[in-house]
């Protein structure tokens, strides 16, 4: 068995497809092709972070809360999605697919590792960063996928505006990171 895996490790196609990272250009082409497939088959552009808002709403409903009067979920479309439930929510399955796909990729490259926390600062930085990204993505009606990638690829000006301000945010964020969390 070990000999078999040792042999695979030396295989050039294993290295090319699983072990080594794909070149940026290959990744870009694959993402473009798959987002076109997504758009064509589901009639909706690819998005990631909006799903998390729905997960939050379903979780809240699970513990007895109601989001019926929340502005964010007030449209008939949003209400219909919530009523149909998580099982019938395509984007949920796509996000789960992304998570398991990423897990498979690291396992196949034998690069999987559970990382240790280095300091409590990392916990604060990660929580703060997550909150800001999540909140920002919702008030912008999209993240770097839904607003940026899908926006630009649909020839929407809003995608470019989002890109410009995302760069501004990244610069400010990096400065803060270096100043307070390093």
């Amino acid at each position, binding site marked *: 068995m070990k000999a078999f895996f040792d042999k695979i490790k030396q295989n050039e196609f294993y290295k090319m497809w699983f072990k080594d*990272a794909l070149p940026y250009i290959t990744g870009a082409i694959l993402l473009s092709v798959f987002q076109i497939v997504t758009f064509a088959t589901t009639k909706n552009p690819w998005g990631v972070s909006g799903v998390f808002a729905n997960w939050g709403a379903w979780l809240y409903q699970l513990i007895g809360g109601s989001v019926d009067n929340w502005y964010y979920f007030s449209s008939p479309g949003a209400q219909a999605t919530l009523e149909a439930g998580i099982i019938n929510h395509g984007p949920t399955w796509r996000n789960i697919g992304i998570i398991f796909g990423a897990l498979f990729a*690291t396992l196949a490259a*034998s*690069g*999987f*590792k559970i*990382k*240790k*926390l*280095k300091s409590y600062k*990392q916990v604060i930085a990660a929580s703060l960063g997550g909150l800001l990204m999540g909140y920002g993505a919702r008030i912008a009606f999209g993240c770097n996928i839904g607003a940026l990638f899908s926006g630009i690829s649909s020839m929407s000006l809003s995608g470019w505006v989002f890109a410009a301000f995302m760069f501004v945010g990244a610069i400010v964020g*990096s400065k803060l*990171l*270096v100043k307070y*969390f*390093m």
Partner: protein
Amino acid sequence: MSKEVVLDCFGEACPVPLVKAEKALEKLEINDILIVQIDHSCAMKNVPEWARKQGHNVEIEEIDDGEWEVIIEKVK
């Protein structure tokens, strides 16, 4: 006499390993060696890329599953 410095970046996410490596290399003399320990795969792309662009000699060693050492020899 050239020296060898180990920079522990285990558990650090992008862009921290790159920023730390830049700062650490600045302090070194020519021919010194900087070993950056990384367990974040995206840093595995940007740290060697940056060092090679600067013209330094770079070698990558996989020391364990999901753990790498980027060995940078400062040449200028």
